[in-house]
């Protein structure tokens, strides 16, 4: 999919019109292990690129999720409250975290596409 972008902190982002859906990559969920809790941002919050926007917890680790782009949070995946396992089961789909309205589409240029990210992850192993 060409509209997918990734960060070096293992967030993914999918562009939907003037907004983007953000989650953590399959690689990240596997490293964290069983996800037990996701703390999501408030709707309406303005976040700057690189700011901490969510927290994801497994039994043995906690990790901040940074927003890959600046903008306003317009939706969050409330289903994760009841069922954080979605992040393990479908990180790139049902396990999405929040949706953000882009301030500056030019910021997308700094992100990796899927092929580049795959190469980046291979380099980590």
């Amino acid at each position, binding site marked *: 999919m060409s509209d997918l972008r990734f960060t070096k902190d293992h967030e993914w982002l999918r562009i939907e019109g003037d907004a983007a859906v953000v989650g953590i990559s399959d690689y990240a969920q596997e490293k964290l292990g069983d996800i*037990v*809790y996701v*703390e999501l941002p408030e709707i309406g919050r303005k976040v700057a690129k690189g700011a901490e926007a969510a927290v994801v*917890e497994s*039994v*043995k*680790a*906690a990790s*901040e999720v940074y927003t890959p782009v600046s903008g306003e949070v317009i939706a969050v995946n409330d289903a994760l409250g009841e069922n954080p396992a979605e992040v393990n089961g479908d990180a790139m789909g049902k396990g999405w975290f929040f949706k953000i309205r882009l301030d500056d589409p030019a910021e997308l240029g700094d992100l990796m596409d899927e092929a580049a990210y795959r190469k980046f992850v291979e380099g980590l192993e």
Partner: protein
Amino acid sequence: MRYLPLNDADRAAMLAKIGAAGVDDLFCDVPEAARLDTRLDLPPPAGEIAVEREIAAMAAKNLGTGRAPSFLGAGAYRHHIPAAVDHLIQRSEFLTSYTPYQPEISQGTLQALFEFQTQVALLTGMEVANASLYDGATAAAEAVLMAMRLTRRRRTVLSGALHPHYRDVVRTMAALADAALVSGGARPAGDEDLAPLIDGDTAAVVVQTPDLFGHLHDLRALAAACHENGALLIAVVTEVVSLGAVMSPGAMGADIVVAEGQSLGVPLSFGGPYVGLMATREKFLRQMPGRLCGETIDKDGRRGFVLTLSAREQHIRREKATSNICTNSGLCALAFCIHLTLLGEAGFTKLARLNHRKAVRAADELAALPGVRLLNRSFFNEFTLELPVPAAPVVERLAGEGILAGVPVSRLEPKAPELASLLLVAVTELTTDEEVAALAAGLRRACSEKV
């Protein structure tokens, strides 16, 4: 040395295996300048007989509450501890184990903590409780920090009838978080109204019941005022036995309840170790500091218990943890749990009512003394007497006569001369009629001579 199993032959054999010429080789990384070779000015080793003799001699210089009529309270209470409590907490499996990091071989501690959390939630009328904190005062400070995180506000209102030491601990800790504290003045008459101090920037209101002066407070209107403004109500209880006789703070609308649990199972010990209790609503759980024990199942499907939600804690979250707390007050929490289990519903509620009824009788007897006035219309097991003379010298004089007459408010509020004549008097199930009579006679003498 009776605690060291190695003899010189062992040490030599071990050094040989290591390939070291002497033990100094093992300390080779210590810079020369810091290798201690002088004798320290400290005593030589001593056997049990000598150590016991020395420490017993220090103990003998004190007037323990066990051998004097004692009316001391103000945050620490002398209660009977059933013999079974002290026996059980000294069993090796509880005394000499550590934090249950390996749940398969720590189910005893974990099950006790689960029962403790349940007891604390039930007593306080809240949904969830943690596995304990250091003491009531630090629990109060942690509650204020927790409320600041939950509301993202800085302003906190402290009742003027909050125990002054609790107030000071809250101040000390909250200053680090840049909190703005607003404090009501001391209100010994029990007529404080905090509602006007609450505004839309208020994170929390901290109120104690029974308060420092012993007054009981109906928190329902205050809770409503907090909630209208988006603030949280933190209720502080320094005498946990009161919860057997009075309505729980949770039932009155508190959002966080903190308490000192010393009264159940934990000796006075000159102020510590004690056990801080903290309970809250389920929705605030993630911001609650301290250890938590939770139920789960094992590989074979059997019920078991583990420490849980530890991603909030410092060993995982490091600088982003909810608190820097690492330990809880394990053995004191266990003593609390065992004592309350022994009491049960019938025993605990009776113990509370016995404390109260004895206190009512004592209050009336003491208030009948000439020049002495009882400030309380309501109270649990502690009340405030206004004496015709400053209270501290009276207490000092009665101590000389072998009576521990209570806590003069000036001990806690030395900068408030208007409170100098106030005496806090606590009565528990251990207080006898003869002791009350002795206090009455002592107060009569001390007050009349000075008037």
